[in-house]
């Protein structure tokens, strides 16, 4: 018994003796929580594909940042926001449907990034950009993550009611003199910054998971938006810790582990959510809305 307890305690404490694990935990948890907060709106607005697009489109920006010796967030933001703007312009000025425009723009940007990587002489490791390298983050990386995360959370704290209004009823926003286009732009801007934050933790390919799964999981568990935010953040933080530990002990990809931990949470919610879970719904049929007390 004692050896079991010691074993469990060691499982948690031994990795913490390494500074790189501490740093990885910090970055993964902060990035996870910021992404989770934003993911609540992404889920409700239906912007999964947009999250995928923005994350892929930042690749050329990251490469060019290395080339010019800038913090990689600068290039990533320029290309993330630029792609969103480009998607908007092509969408408005052609008959091609929005999902196709998104598909064209983000794959083009990603391809441009790949070509640049192969030509730009640098110590940039493509693998680290694509799949994350949270066990090897530098001090500068950590500061970028912390500053950008603080910016996103501050803006969200200030504007969360407007963002929810935009997600729920943009026409009403317009009718009371609040510009929904401005809110859409704000949300896309927040998405760009958030993607940059999450790049450090899980890499370009898996960022989209971080900005969708926690929100989708929380959406299955509550009917209240404030609780949704809290649940999403908690799921993401737990998944970040689980992922980093699993990665350390099993010697597997950290980004992959974090996302798999999130996906496990989603699966549990999908199956066992008290009201929305598919297994629960079989037994307790939710009262149909129309059956509520007569009006």
């Amino acid at each position: 018994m004692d050896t079991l307890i010691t074993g469990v305690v060691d499982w948690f404490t031994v990795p913490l003796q390494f500074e790189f694990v501490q740093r990885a935990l910090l970055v993964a948890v902060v990035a996870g929580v910021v992404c989770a907060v934003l993911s609540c709106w992404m889920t409700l607005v239906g912007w999964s594909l947009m999250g995928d697009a923005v994350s892929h489109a930042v690749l050329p920006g990251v490469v060019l940042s290395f080339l010019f010796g800038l913090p990689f967030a600068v290039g990533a933001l320029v290309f993330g926001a630029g792609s969103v703007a480009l998607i908007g312009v092509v969408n408005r000025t052609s008959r091609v449907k929005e999902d196709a425009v998104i598909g064209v723009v983000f794959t083009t940007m990603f391809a441009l990034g790949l070509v640049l990587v192969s030509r730009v002489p640098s110590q940039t490791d493509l693998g680290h950009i694509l799949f994350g390298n949270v066990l090897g983050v530098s001090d500068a990386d950590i500061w970028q993550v912390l500053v950008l995360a603080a910016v996103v959370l501050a803006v969200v704290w200030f504007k969360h009611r407007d963002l929810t209004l935009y997600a729920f009823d943009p026409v009403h926003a317009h009718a009371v003199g609040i510009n929904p286009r401005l809110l859409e732009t704000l949300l896309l801007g927040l998405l760009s910054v958030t993607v940059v934050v999450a790049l450090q933790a899980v890499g370009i390919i898996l960022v989209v998971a971080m900005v969708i799964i926690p929100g989708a999981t929380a959406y299955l568990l509550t009917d209240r938006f404030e609780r949704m935010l809290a649940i999403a953040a908690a799921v993401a933080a737990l998944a970040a810790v689980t992922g980093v530990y699993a990665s350390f002990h099993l010697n597997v990809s950290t980004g992959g582990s974090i996302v798999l931990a999130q996906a496990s949470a989603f699966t549990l919610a999908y199956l066992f959510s008290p009201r929305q879970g598919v297994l629960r719904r079989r037994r307790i049929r939710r009262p149909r809305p129309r059956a509520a007390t007569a009006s």
Partner: protein
Amino acid sequence: MTAAIEVTGATVRYGDVLALDDVGLTVAPGRVCGLLGTNGSGKSTLFKTILGLVPAESGRVRILGHTGTAARRRGLLGYVPQAEQVDWAFPVRVRDVVMMGRYGHVGPRRRSRPADTRAVEHALARTHLTDLADRQIGALSGGQRKRAFVARAIAQEADVLLLDEPFAGVDKRSEATITELLLQLRDGGRTLLVSTHDLAQVPALCDEAVLLQRHVIARGSPEEVLRPETLMAAFGVRAQEEGSPWTP
């Protein structure tokens, strides 16, 4: 007297499709105007034009003498959406939805002050939703859902209300409740423009009616507009063939 709603010569095109053709509409303050027409007759487009959501090729909109932008900034225009346009699974409570009516009145953070909470409570009471205020919006019946959005317009203190198909998906008893509520709002001085393809409630609710089929076909008292000859003239062939052009 300044008209509550004044639309003159509104023409709207979606690409090659003419959605509204030189539409004029005037509603005096304190009146209920029924906007009648089949699906695709331009009712929704006219609403969007009044709300400033689609640019009119020509024509102008005045709300209580103000341009659309000025009217929206002053919170004069309240909008009650069609049921299909609302995400009923959205994680908001009835109370949260009604509070959104106050967002034009409060600061950039949209934090509610005691006065806003009072306005929301008042609107909930007026619409008999006080006991249901903490339910998720989708956990209401069809009629209650409509009343929640009317409550939002009341909390907004909007003088002019646009209601898009308020009787769609609502049972008979709720129809009567909604009609009564809307008449109370009118008697309080508000102006209502109610689009509907369900004619049953029109005589009880509307002071006047407009029949729309891309342009205004008839206007006048509900009795005049709903006269079989008028309807026949507007939809003659279809009315005979299908019995009624109004069934959705």
